[in-house]
């Protein structure tokens, strides 16, 4: 077992004062807990199980990301795969991610996913997921990890070789870009941050640059 400490960043700037009160809704918590297969043992001991509405603690901040992923489409509750990823992103993520765990991490990765036959599959969220990213970027990370949970890894080190590979980076870019353009109940800042992050991924995570920005 690892132990870690964290300081809570500004709650307005991260979007946790915007999304925190939305998360504090028992029906949503009950649903998310089952849909993403949270387990108490992975979210107690300071990770927020005992204070799910406390937006300074990891669990509430993870739920804020899930809320953002779930309710940002103007077409909700439609979740059709014939539409854009803002609409079906949550559907895909909750079906692909086997279980969602909180861990301290070692300061290098924001999240990681292990998947394969005959092993325990999981997605782990580390301290920098909760405290180093605003809410919309957390949602983008969940989409990225869900693509890995579905069995699609990167094909060029930590990068994807191309846009056509249709990997986790493309999916993250698409979700962030659609959120920036059409996300509802969001702030100007959160959408702009999503757009900038999408461009940073396009400009650095594809071996062959796709030739566009959003």
């Amino acid at each position, binding site marked *: 077992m690892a132990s870690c400490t*964290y300081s809570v960043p500004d709650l307005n700037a991260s979007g946790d004062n915007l999304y925190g009160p939305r998360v504090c809704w028992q029906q949503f918590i009950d649903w998310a807990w089952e849909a993403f297969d949270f387990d108490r043992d992975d979210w107690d001991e300071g990770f927020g199980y005992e204070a799910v509405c406390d937006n300074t603690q990891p669990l509430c901040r993870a739920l804020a990301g899930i809320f953002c992923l779930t309710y940002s489409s103007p077409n909700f509750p439609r979740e059709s795969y014939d539409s854009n990823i803002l609409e079906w992103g949550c559907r895909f993520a909750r079906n692909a991610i086997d279980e969602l765990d909180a861990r301290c991490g070692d300061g290098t990765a924001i999240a990681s996913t292990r998947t394969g036959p005959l092993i325990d599959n999981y997605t782990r969220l580390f301290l920098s997921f909760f405290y180093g990213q605003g809410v919309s970027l957390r949602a983008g990370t969940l989409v990225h990890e869900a693509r890995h949970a579905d069995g699609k890894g990167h094909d060029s080190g930590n990068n994807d070789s191309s846009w056509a590979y249709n990997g986790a980076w493309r*999916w993250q870019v698409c979700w962030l870009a659609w959120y920036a353009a059409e996300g509802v109940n969001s702030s100007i800042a959160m959408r702009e941050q999503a757009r900038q992050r999408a461009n940073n991924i396009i400009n650095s995570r594809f071996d062959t640059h796709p030739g566009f920005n959003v």
Partner: protein
Amino acid sequence: MVCEKPSGQNGSDNAAAQPGDRPFDSTALAWLVGEGIRHLHSSDKEGELAFQRVVELLSHSRSSVKTVIELSHRVAREDVSLRWSLIHLLGEFGDESSAEFLRQTAIEQLPAEEKRQVCESPRDGEVLIRTAAVQSLVRVASRHPAVQEMFLHLVADRPVRAVLIEAVKAAIELGLRDKVAQLLPEQDKWMLEIKRVRVQEIAADPERKDSGERGFTPPKSKCSTTTPVISCCSRTEK
């Protein structure tokens, strides 16, 4: 964030919060900046209007830029969202005196890239700060033509690719395409041709059809309820 021992493969971890700083309590101007950040992150028209009012008020004070820069130095490095917001605010001011700070931020050395198999890392937050600085610098330069030359220096400094591309795009937007083309080596000239596309032009292929499993359907948002409720989610912001 401090990890005393990295997480292992088995067993859960424990975490504890440390008290944070209160950077906006130091002066009246810093408090007003804090109000600006609060409204910048609100989701309604009322908040957007309040943000514009705060920017107007801050623009009347000659010390506002200095205060925001001081706050940027004071806040914890790990608080990427707050640093990003302060940089965004400088773009809103569009004041020439912030240009050098923004340029320095854009070219500040990044932490080394993680060699191990990790996707996103805290370094991505640092890249976001630098690209935000370029975008705010564009807004300053659009009001103060003397600042435009800074983009040529930025390109010449050869920052990491994500920052370099933002600088190239900005220079083109400001009418400096020919000068930037001269600075870019042959293998990077493709950056001049990057298009900006509408979101409708990009898509992720889900590789599945609607007939498959939908899983646990999320509850309808409280906001879509039409019957009277004892409290409505639209007024819960502080």
